[in-house]
C-alpha cells in the first residue's frame, strides 16, 4: 500500500485526508522533513498560496520538496497547490515563488474574487462528469505541449475556455477542489498512477 502525504501547513487538509483514506492508502499529514521523507507521493491542498509558501520556508520544507519534484516525485495540487506547482504566476505578489514542476502559466483569482466563486459540472477525460467547486480559483492561461489537458471549462464569463485539470508526467493539478465535493475519483486517478 502506498503512503500518500497531504501537506498539512494550512488549508483544507482534512478533506484531502478523507478522500485518500477512502482509497485504502496510508495517509500522512506532512509538516516536517521526516514526514516528507516517509511518503511515496504528496497532495498539496487548497488554502492560501502565499501562506503555504511562507510556511514551506519557515518549516524548512521548501528546498527538500523542490529537490523531490526535480527527481519526478508524484504530486497532486488543487487550487493553491496548483499555484505552488506552476511555472509562472500572473497577478500574484511581486515576490511570489513557485516550483515550476508543471509547465503552466496561471492567473491568481483568474475567475474573480469570492463573490464570483462558483460550482459547475466538469467533464473529465476517462472519468466522466465531476462536480467542480471553484473558490477564488487560479486560471490556467498558458501551458506547454507536454501538459496533458484532462478537462476544460468555459464558465461563461466572457474570458473563454481554459484547462481546469491537467497532468504532466507525475505532476497533477486542478484549479478547482475535487476534495470539497466528496467525490474521490480524481484522487483515485492519482493514487492508481503511483
Amino acid at each position: 500500500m502506498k503512503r500518500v502525504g497531504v501537506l498539512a501547513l494550512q488549508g483544507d487538509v482534512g478533506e484531502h485526508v478523507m478522500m485518500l483514506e477512502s482509497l485504502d492508502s496510508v495517509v500522512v499529514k506532512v509538516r516536517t522533513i521526516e514526514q516528507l521523507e516517509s511518503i511515496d507521493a504528496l497532495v498539496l491542498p487548497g488554502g492560501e498560496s502565499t501562506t503555504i509558501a511562507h510556511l514551506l520556508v519557515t518549516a524548512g520544507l521548501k528546498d527538500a520538496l523542490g529537490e523531490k519534484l526535480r527527481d519526478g516525485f508524484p504530486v497532486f495540487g488543487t487550487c493553491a497547490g496548483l499555484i505552488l506547482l506552476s511555472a509562472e504566476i500572473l497577478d500574484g505578489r511581486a515576490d511570489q515563488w513557485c516550483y515550476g514542476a508543471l509547465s503552466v502559466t496561471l492567473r491568481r483569482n483568474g475567475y474573480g474574487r469570492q463573490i464570483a466563486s462558483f460550482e459547475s459540472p466538469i467533464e473529465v477525460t476517462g472519468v466522466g462528469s465531476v462536480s467542480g467547486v471553484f473558490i477564488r480559483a487560479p486560471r490556467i492561461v498558458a501551458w506547454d505541449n507536454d501538459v496533458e489537458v484532462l478537462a476544460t471549462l468555459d464558465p461563461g464569463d466572457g474570458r473563454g475556455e481554459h484547462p481546469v485539470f491537467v497532468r504532466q508526467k507525475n505532476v497533477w493539478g486542478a484549479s478547482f477542489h475535487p476534495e470539497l465535493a466528496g467525490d474521490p475519483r480524481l484522487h483515485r486517478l492519482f493514487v492508481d498512477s503511483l
Partner: protein
Amino acid sequence: MSPSKSPAVTGSALVKRGLADMLRGGVIMDVVNPEQAKIAEDAGAVAVMALERVPADIRRDGGVARMSDPLMIQEIQAAVTIPVMAKARIGHFAEAQILQALDVDYIDESEVLTPADEEYHIDKWAFTVPFVCGATNLGEALRRIGEGACLIRSKGEAGTGNVVEAVRHLRTINAQMRRLHSADKNELFTLAKDLQAPLPLVQEVAQSGKLPVPLFCAGGISTPADASLVLQLGAEAVFVGSGIFKSEDPTRMACAIVEATTHYLDASVVAKVSTGLGSAMKGWETSSLEQRLAERGW
C-alpha cells in the same frame, strides 16, 4: 473530450462555506491600513479584516463604531492578494449590501461594531458573499447558521488581549456539541428548544458531532501560546484583532502566531517562536470591563 459549458452557479452554500474551508489552519488579522495589510500578508496571514479601528481602540475611544470607509477597504484590496474581509453592524443589512458591492470576500456581522438592530440579525441567505458571525454558545451558533452564516467564530472578548472568554466560549460550544452527539434522538426536540436553535441543525450536529460550518476562534488571542491553546481546544483557525498591531513588534508577533497556528501540536516550535518576542499587547482583566462586546447579538 468535450469542454464543460454548463452555467456556473455562484453563491451556493458549498461555494460560500468553501472559502472558510480554505482558511483552515490559518490566521486572519485585523488591519487598519494598506501598510498593515502588507505586513500581515508577508507574515503569512490567510486573510485580513479591514477596519478603521482595532477593537482595543474602539473600546478606548467609545462612540458608535460603524462599517469602515469604502476607500480604506478598496486600498487594502489593492494592496494584498489574500482575501479581504470587512465588518458590518449586527442587523445592518444596508452596510452588508455596500460591502458586497465592494466585492469583499467575507462579511463579519460583528458585535465589535455598535449593533444597528437589537432584535434581528441580517438575513445572510439573501447575499452571494459569505458571512462569518460570532457565538458564545451552540444555540447562538446554530441560530446564525440558520440565518445563513457560513463560518462561526467563538466571540471571546475583543480588544482585551485576554483569552479567558475565548476559552469559555469554545469550551461551551464543544461541550454542548458533545451533549447533542451523545443524546438519544427522542431528546433532541427538547434540546433544540433549550438551545433555542433550529431543530434540523440540532439533528445535524447530533449526527456529525460537529458544526455544519467551520468553527474559528476570536477575541483576546494575543500570543503564539494563545493560538496553540484555542486550536487544541478545537478551533480550526484564529482571528487576531488587536493582538498583533498593539504588540511591541507586530511583524515578529504576526509571524510567530502564524507558525504557532500551523505547528500548534509541536510545543518545541511554539516555544521557539515565543522566544524573545517582545511584549504582547497590554490587555484588560475582563471583570473590570464596562462594556462586554460578547453580550451583543442574540
